[in-house]
């Protein structure tokens, strides 16, 4: 957010801009990841996937679903943050994407709830 103070000759003084980002203010991928960092991240993702698969073979009872969902969310965010560079990129991209994601989760979860989806 940048606050604009150059408003002149008007009764309207709300220069606050919710999207304008000064070009210099864009984080220039300050943490420039190198190729081997990506390999490392991919390795982590692999381990997580392996853990997921392993978890599905172990008797975890009612814990299984939350554990799987948490690991899924970690993988999801990792790919979005690092492979898709949402971390370190302008924040508006995250807003756009996560707005769609949370909207989707919200409306569809609510709709499924009305079907008594979560009741046995």
């Amino acid at each position, binding site marked *: 957010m940048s606050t604009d103070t150059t408003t002149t000759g008007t009764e309207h003084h709300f220069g606050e801009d919710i999207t304008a980002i000064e070009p210099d203010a864009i984080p220039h991928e300050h943490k420039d990841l190198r190729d081997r960092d990506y390999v490392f991240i991919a390795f982590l993702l692999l381990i997580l996937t392996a853990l997921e698969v392993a978890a599905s073979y172990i008797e975890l009872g009612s814990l299984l679903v939350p554990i799987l969902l948490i690991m899924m969310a970690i993988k999801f965010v990792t790919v979005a943050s690092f492979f898709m560079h949402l971390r370190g990129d302008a924040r508006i991209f995250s807003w756009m994407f996560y*707005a769609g994601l949370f909207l989707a989760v919200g409306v569809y979860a609510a709709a499924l709830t009305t079907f008594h989806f979560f009741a046995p």
Partner: protein
Amino acid sequence: MAIIERPTDTPALAPSGGAPAVTPTRSYGYLRRPVQTTGWRSWAFTVDHKKIGIMYGVAAMLFFVVGGVEALFIRLQLAGPEGTVLSADAYNQMFTMHATTMVFLFVIPMAAAFANYMIPLQIGARDVAFPRLNALSLWTFVFGGIFLNTSWFLGGAADGGWFMYAPNSAVPFSPSNGVDYWTLGLLITGIASLVGAVNLIVTVLNMRAPGMTMMRVPIFTWMALVTQFLLLFAMPVITVALVLLLFQRNYDATFFEVAEGADPLLWQHLFWIFGHPEVYIIVLPAFGIVSEVLPVFSKKPLFGYPFVVFSGAAIGFVGWGVWAHHMFASGLGPISVAVFSVATMAIAVPTGVKIINWTLTMWGGKLRFTTAMLFATGLIVMFTIGGLSGVTHSVAPSDTQQTDTYYIVAHFHYVIFGGAVLGLFAGIYYWWPKVFGKLLNESWGKANFWTMIIGMNLTFGPMHIVGLQGQPRRMYVWTENRAGDGFFNIGFWNLVATIGSFILAVGVLFFFINVWVSRKNPPAPADPWDARSLEWMAENPPKEYNFERTPTVHALDEMFHRKYEDVGEGDAHDYVKVATAEEIQAVETANRDDHVHLPSPSYWPIVLSFSLPVIAYGIIYSTLLVIVGLAIATVAMFGWALEPPTADDSEFESPEGGDGGEPSKELVASV
């Protein structure tokens, strides 16, 4: 065109008069890039947001007439008891297509027409962010609309009602191909809306002129932006629903068949998760338009601009949490009903904020009741009525009583006609001189307004009564012996509604007469309404490149502040006119940008759009056509990808009779 030839609009400087020939020297495959600036090619292949906006508007108006004629048939059928104008089947098709046409082929595209034309002008841009995608949206909508309407001649149109509930949408209940046309047609127009939404959002966020912060963006652009976000997120939801229905009807899936264990409520949820944001998609652009019109004709700034902006955004947000109020009668369960009831009541608040802001904008203003202003004030009154009857639906017990009666029909027509359509007409009258350089006739305009207002109230007002009396919607006949007595006799009110609908039709006819009689009006002045926003800094109609130079914005209502200076002392404001629009434009022209790059026309958007109905016909009739359509689409996409957005330097030769020598990209005559 990629090149702005400065001499052509300044004859004194153009040696030979005619525009220098610009010829492409390199072609892609067998096709040369289109370069025509006149004739049908200049429209079919254009990527100019203004031409695209006009074509959007013209196409939407044609569909408005089609949808209107369908409405008249419905009213004729219901004018008396045991109507015989239409068969039950034809009546089903009529009301389904009336609603579908009006919502998807008139209101959304008409709003898109304004958004396309006005957004770049209001934010000081030369075009939208993706001009070719813009052309793709237009043609996809046009072909999708035509495709949808060809079903009338190919076995009958869709007949399940515009929300196409299961099981009515299933093959046993709707055996013609009508529902398939409907499904595929809406998928196609959905692509148009989605592409347009991405394009216009990027345009508003990224293409603003220097100084045009988000809180200086004209209110119409703001409301259009919220609308585009709603489209962006709502379209995929209906896409899912339509795809499931398509698979059910064409590939024997059973997504909505109760006998197979399916849950028909799934369709209702998917449809209304899309459908309620859709209501705001319909009405928010009109809100934006009246928020432009009212201040201009009240000679006051919009009261509480940030409140109007944020209430618009709030509507856009809360609009996602109320969809199930369309489903109160479906047995959702008390908790769901209670939650959605409260959410529905809550959404009345930001809407009320807007109405208060409009009223206070007019309060104490120097009102000029031009036709545009009349339509805008008409919207405030009519929409308030529709809004109030809407709040009665949020009360679930009351809603259960009203569901599927004419009371609902009355409500949403006050909202859609009284809200969206009146707002769109306000916009047409207000921006007509901007778009066509001529004013519309005010006398015909007023006749147009008053007949439409009287007509709509006679048509939709009585529907409250017959609805509360229990006349169900979508019944193709009513009978005398169940019509009731006295004041509440539904026979009488049905007749009134039918008469009203014809008065309304005459009102719309007056509009077209007005367009016809106004065609030879003298050129409009640069600033006929003493307007406030940036689009009036461009000429009427704007040049292909919109602005002589990219404007620098210093204030909300930039144009007003360029025309008027505050000479008030201290806190007192006293505005004195210091410049006319003509003078401001003259300054712009004198300081015009020498180098203007505009995107070049392209064949590919229209070709790619054309492939979609081909594929759709193929899905209904023959796989071979699908393959043909996919082939066309593939060629078009590769053509698109291989074609630079702006014509390459080497594609142009220096103009004949020019200063010769080296090929130059800009043919510039500096003053």
